[in-house]
């Protein structure tokens, strides 16, 4: 018998419906009296739980929960840049974004796949404008993001950016502003804020948007959109995300204040 192969029947069926983002046939439940599941209005996000300083070994850390989306983020550094990476007059950010192997409906591999690598780049690009990297010559700041539970991939990315920025502030890295990120999904041609997996479908016409912004300065630091959407809807969605970012900013400030008050 060949033990290197999985001994299974020649024909098999999928054991359960994969409620992955790509699964067809999953349609968002219709609005009930203008509200979504959980009594949210279309533009509302899920309540946020954000706490800093939970990882004792890190220079700064943050943990965020939005519904069942759970993301932990740790910041280490600034530390000296490695010799082989060369001299750099400005500091650098390095990010490692990882879904825990059990975070999604399908098991993830231990090695980072291309989506995780791309999200790492997105997080670096979203945070770089907010950090005074000229103050950190020859140094690198490491950001490690672990998604413990994925309830909507777009919301995971937004939560990761928000948590990473809070963790950087917690680590005492000099910044010009915090970065807040919001996500939304277009459902039957209307934008709905912060959609969990069941609502966030990639059926024909489905689309999502992640937008990161420095709320006090107003500048947009990242924008990631996919899916066919008319121009009018897109501009409305961008405005809606910017509004939500201001609300997330208040939560970030509150949790940072609370943590520093508790330390004193």
């Amino acid at each position, binding site marked *: 018998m060949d033990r290197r192969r999985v001994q299974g029947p020649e024909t098999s069926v999928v054991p359960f419906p*994969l409620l*992955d983002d790509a699964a067809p046939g999953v349609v968002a439940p219709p609005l009930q009296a203008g509200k979504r599941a959980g009594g949210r209005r279309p533009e509302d996000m899920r309540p946020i739980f954000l706490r800093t300083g939970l990882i004792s070994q890190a220079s700064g850390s943050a943990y965020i929960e939005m519904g069942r989306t759970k993301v932990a983020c740790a910041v280490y550094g600034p530390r000296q840049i490695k010799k082989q990476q060369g001299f750099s007059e400005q500091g650098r950010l390095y990010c490692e974004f990882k879904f825990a192997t059990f975070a999604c409906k399908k098991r993830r591999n231990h090695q980072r796949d*291309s*989506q995780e690598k791309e999200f790492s780049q997105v997080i670096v690009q979203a945070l770089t404008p907010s950090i005074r990297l000229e103050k950190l010559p020859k140094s690198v700041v490491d950001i490690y993001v672990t998604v413990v539970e994925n309830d909507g991939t777009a919301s995971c990315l937004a939560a990761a950016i928000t948590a990473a920025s809070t963790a950087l502030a917690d680590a005492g890295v000099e910044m010009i502003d915090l970065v807040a990120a919001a996500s939304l999904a277009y459902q039957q041609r209307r934008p709905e804020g912060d959609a969990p997996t069941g609502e966030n479908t990639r059926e024909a016409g489905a689309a999502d948007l992640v937008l990161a912004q420095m709320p006090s300065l107003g500048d*947009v630091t990242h924008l990631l*959109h996919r899916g066919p959407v*008319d121009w009018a809807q*897109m*501009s409305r969605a961008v405005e809606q995300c910017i509004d939500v970012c201001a609300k997330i900013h208040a939560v970030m400030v509150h949790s940072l204040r609370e943590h520093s008050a508790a330390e004193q």
Partner: protein
Amino acid sequence: MASFGLVSQVERDFVERGVDVGIRADGRARDDYRPPRVELGLVSQSDGSARCQLGDGTDVLVSVRCELGQADPAADDRGRLAVSVECSPSASQRFEGRGADDLNTELSEAVTRALTGPQSGLNLRQLCIVPGMHCWVLNIDAIVLNYGGNVVDALLIATRAALADTRVPRTVVQEMEDGAMDFEVDDDVENAQPLEHVHNVPLCVTANKIGAGYVLDATLTEELCASARLHVTVNSSGQVCAAQKSGDGAIEPSLLMAMLQAAKEQARRLLEQQDEQIRRHETEIAAKRARGEPVKRPSIFV
């Protein structure tokens, strides 16, 4: 794109002031696009191919090959696309070894985002052979032969043209006595089918933020001076199919909207030009066939 060498402070200043007053080094206005030169059907070993050149620098080659694959259980009545982008070391010494890994990831994801999912506009059901068992996988492989700025746009222009050039071999499905399905691939290129709805495939236009303004279709020097880039992918019905910021800078919301709008307008013009070119290419092939000249075989038989 710091890996392409450095740009001096004076050079940066020159480009930024130029953008401020609407003058660029090659004489274009801020919204002007270098006319892309596209050639179709260059690679005889693939089922569809195209090359796109922008200006004197950028040069990309895209090949589409049909391969037999297992159907994805989550979407068992459809085929799929697999995109990979590689920056050739001949384009820049920095691409040698693992030097281009980050850029390859970024470019592949940018093209993937435009082409996978409903935004590609393609009819993926056409690529299904036996539902739940076999399908065609379209391997879209791109090589960046020369890097002269604005590579993402060139990649999508070439990919769209290559998809229009692609012919999928015909398959004949037979039911066996025990109920199992078997199929044969027809090796006659006369019977191979073009992809349906290729005209819905989107194109990408990149706006680069330089100083307080923006330019479309930046050259390499301009890209080095840009603080942020915005890739906007638009289809022929004017819908935004994908949008992504890259680079280390931030963009004010009003400028962001202006960049999106300008990119969308430019994409519409590019789509019209390309559809015209694809029509010309198809009439040429039809004329060749009518004259009885040989046409290539599907790649899986080569």
